[in-house]
């Protein structure tokens, strides 16, 4: 089965100024995002995350490289039919109510007329926006805007959902609500690509992460793998195995202690991020 998103040798140059100076936003990026997982795309501002997502969605053209969504070339409407997108700091037509917006997006996404009403109610329910659905969007708080944005992104039951900074500017309660929505989508077997600066949340909800810096991929892998420090071990007291543990137990027993487990110590995703990104900036 093809990946949810496949990015091969993607490069994007922008021309800036009157002299057309070349600014490389994405530099030979290759990524395979597997289906059915929550995938975190991390990096500092200006590292090329949003540009990569825009290329994936066909909003910006690539200078070089290939991108496909669920096996289809990414710029085609067919690929976007199976994709939902919540842009960073979403802004919607203020005069529409939340329900009108979600219905409008359902219609544009190709939901059959007979199914639109049910799809809208499902999406509003998932985003916990049913009660406020008949209010004009102009009256919504930032957290509600993000949630209605989430509802419009999932109203057509897409296989892939791309969320660009879904918790930016949202308070911890709203942020936790968005986290629950992501869990609910994962439980349905959807693939979710999450761009976020809230590293704690990314660590909690993501299965895999990729970290970008200056347009390049600097690290990619399972969250558990990339956060494990395999050069060190933590002994927890109880039932440690093999020979080494026996020696350790003997040594500890001599001091009246019992080893209960051996595990890999973890560093936080935030520490890893800072080490990879800030370290390279300081160099």
């Amino acid at each position, binding site marked *: 089965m093809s990946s949810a998103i496949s990015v091969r040798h993607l490069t994007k140059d922008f021309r800036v100024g009157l002299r057309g100076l070349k600014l490389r936003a994405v530099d030979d990026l290759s990524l395979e995002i597997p289906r059915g997982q929550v995938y975190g795309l991390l990096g500092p501002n200006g590292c090329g995350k949003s540009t990569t997502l*825009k290329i994936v*969605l*066909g*909003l*910006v*053209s690539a200078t070089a490289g290939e991108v496909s969504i669920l096996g289809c070339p990414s710029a085609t*409407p*067919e690929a*976007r*039919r199976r*994709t939902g*997108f919540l*842009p960073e*700091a*979403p*802004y*919607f*037509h203020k*005069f*529409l109510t939340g329900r009108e917006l979600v219905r*409008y*997006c359902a*219609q*544009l*996404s*190709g939901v*059959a007329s007979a199914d639109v009403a049910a799809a809208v109610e499902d999406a509003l329910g998932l985003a916990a926006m049913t009660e406020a659905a008949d209010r004009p969007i102009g009256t919504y708080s930032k957290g509600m805007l993000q949630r209605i*944005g989430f509802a*419009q992104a999932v109203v057509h039951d897409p296989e892939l959902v791309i969320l660009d900074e879904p918790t930016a500017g949202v308070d911890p309660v709203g942020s936790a609500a968005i986290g629950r929505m992501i869990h609910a989508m994962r439980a349905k077997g959807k693939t979710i690509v999450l761009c976020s600066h809230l590293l704690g949340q990314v660590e909690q909800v993501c299965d895999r992460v990729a970290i970008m810096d200056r347009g390049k991929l600097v690290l990619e892998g399972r969250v558990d793998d990339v956060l494990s420090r395999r050069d060190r071990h933590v002994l927890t007291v109880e039932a440690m195995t093999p020979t080494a543990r026996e020696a350790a137990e003997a040594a500890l027993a001599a001091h009246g202690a019992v080893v209960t487990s051996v595990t890999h110590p973890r560093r936080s995703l935030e520490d890893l991020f800072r080490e990879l990104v800030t370290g390279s900036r300081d160099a």
Partner: protein
Amino acid sequence: MNPMKASFQRVSWIARVTFLEAVRQRFFAFLLILGAAMALSSVSFRVLDFGHGELKFIADFGFGGMFLFGSVLAVVMTAQLFFSEMDNKTALTLLAKPLGRGEFLLGKFAGAWAVLGVFVAVLSVLLGVVLWAREQELLLLSEQSGKVPPTFSASGLAQFALLQWLRLGVVASIVLAISAVARTFLYAVVVGALAVVAGQLQWIAQDAVLKPSESPAYEAVLWLTSRLLPNLQQFNIGDALVLSSAGVESGAVWAVTLAGAAYMAAYVFLGALLFKRREI
């Protein structure tokens, strides 16, 4: 679902929201009120008439309001409707859906053109009411004086209104094509306004093409200009349609209509092509 039908539906949804957005704008209400006030007040200004018939003066006043405020509305509102989607980034959300760029642009055009239709319809109805009321007064006066009363044609006014709607559609399509490549709202408005002025003066290029010239390059530029730019003056046949007893040959009206529709379609198509290359 039939792909053509699905595409038509997507265009109509974009058009519907564009229309709702436009009619909520104060700018639209402001120009509509100004235009309506101009049409209604034309009776009061007839004392300024310099020898023309009263109905002609009233009709010219109304036509002028429709032309002036309609052109401003077509240029500024169309550009504003396009750039509000770009600058507010609502286009990001919409174009990330299975919606073609051409469908998006066509929907924006249809929504803007529908608003211009409302504008023209309201002003035409008001002008028709003013003309009819004065016509009735003049009929009574002529019965007393024994003179032949002036009359106007309601069906001619309806035809003129449709032609004005088409003219504003051509202007809106040009502005949309400019907006598709413009980086700023101001640039689109300024170039769009210049295009309207050039369209009003296009007949000069048409006349020049007919005159022999020794420079092939000059002839080529004139020929190209006269083909690329629509002749917006050809829609100004209000007097003949509304006030002349002879009217206008239906062939002439059809020729203007077909030329307008062709330019409108061509500019929307050009806009869609240009917009396809735009990075959002």
